[in-house]
């Protein structure tokens, strides 16, 4: 399976580099949203719960753009059939796509967090950065797993652009709650607060549950 995952990842990265679609869209969406919040809230700086809320909602909506594009090449250029004809474990496709989405999210977040700190965040971003990276990494894993699962369901339908947000956003509610609660103390005025272990555990549990679920059902999603 390792070789198949590597082959799929290499192919997808090459396609994204050659004709960038998902990543630029996610970055631009995040930046535009922060600019809109900046003017809509009429506040120069935000912190604590409000800052965490803005960050997580923006991240989630940006992720939806990436999820929507995840299987498009497979669907439109016959990649599904090409993969299904190969003598490889079908879970390789899930692992490759989830890894790709995780990488896209991590890349986008570099720009996103920088723009957030510059445009909206009151407190210094440096002190909470290690904690924020940890929370984002756990959340990315959850978004990648659920996003890949939802994308695989939606891409089989004509209304895939509608289905992805309709399925992915409700499924992501626990992730947003845990992410925002974990992040809020980090972004509070007066210096970074401590990370609460229970929210990290919640994120970890979310990743585990949906990871196992995806592993169990992904094969069936590829059946006709």
């Amino acid at each position, binding site marked *: 399976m390792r070789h198949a995952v590597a082959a799929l990842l290499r192919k997808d990265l090459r396609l994204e580099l050659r004709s960038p679609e998902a990543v630029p869209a996610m970055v631009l969406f995040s930046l535009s949203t922060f600019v809109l919040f900046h003017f809509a809230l009429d506040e120069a700086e935000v912190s604590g719960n409000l800052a965490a809320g803005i960050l997580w909602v923006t991240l989630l909506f940006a992720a939806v753009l990436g999820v929507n594009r995840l299987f498009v090449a497979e669907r439109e250029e016959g990649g599904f*059939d*090409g993969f299904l004809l190969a*003598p490889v474990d079908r879970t390789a496709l899930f692992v490759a796509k989830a890894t790709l989405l995780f990488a896209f999210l991590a890349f986008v977040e570099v720009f996103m967090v920088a723009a957030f700190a510059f445009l909206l965040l009151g407190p210094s971003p440096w002190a909470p950065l290690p904690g924020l990276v940890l929370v984002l990494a756990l959340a990315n894993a959850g978004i990648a797993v659920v996003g890949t699962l939802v994308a695989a369901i939606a891409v089989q339908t004509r209304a895939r652009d509608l289905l992805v947000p309709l399925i992915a956003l409700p499924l992501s509610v626990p992730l947003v709650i845990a992410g925002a609660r974990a992040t809020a103390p980090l972004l509070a005025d007066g210096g970074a607060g401590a990370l609460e272990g229970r929210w990290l555990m919640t994120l970890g549990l979310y990743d585990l549950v949906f990871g196992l679920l995806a592993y169990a059902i992904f094969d069936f999603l590829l059946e006709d």
Partner: protein
Amino acid sequence: MRAIELADVGRAYGERVALAGVTLALEQGETLAVFGANGAGKTTLLRILATLLRPHRGTARVLGHELPKQGWAVRGRIGLLGHEPLLYRDLTARENLRFHARLHGVEAQRIEELLDAVGMRARADDPVHTFSRGMVQRTAVCRALLHDPELLLLDEPLAGLDPGAVGLVAPLLKGRTRVLISHDVEAGLAEADLVLGLRQGRVALLGRDVSEADVRALYA
């Protein structure tokens, strides 16, 4: 062991029956030519044999394995050349073939051999979206033959090829068990050991000694 054994195989899309009651047997090394008008069920049959569609009725055995239950044992032994080239447009021919070679565990040397054989070596590093239809088809032939499949499933394999390319490609597709969909009745019959004619998803013609007139009647 027979290459293909179908017993009362059928498939529906919702209420519409695309294929019904197909029963036949094909020996190793033989060619089954499938004829029928558009929408007759030819592609559905091909996709069932390729393990890409489940039959809703009957039993299908390919290379000694029952589908879809043992599809995993057949994948990698089948080469499919259908309407879609199964190539990524933004990748070059060589990158596409490398990708499929990795999935099938095939050495890179085989890619170069096939590119040479179909006369595509000079354009191998150009993106597929810059190719003519014939060049896409030649690359798709390489993709289908990469893993040296025992069974070839071919849907109009020479479509879009100029006479020179036909001369390069046609010999590569011979010498193994084949299911061949063709609208070129004369050429299809010349290749066939067994002929299947479909009309509205049902078997209208099946035999080893079939006349051209019988096949043409399928399109009337």
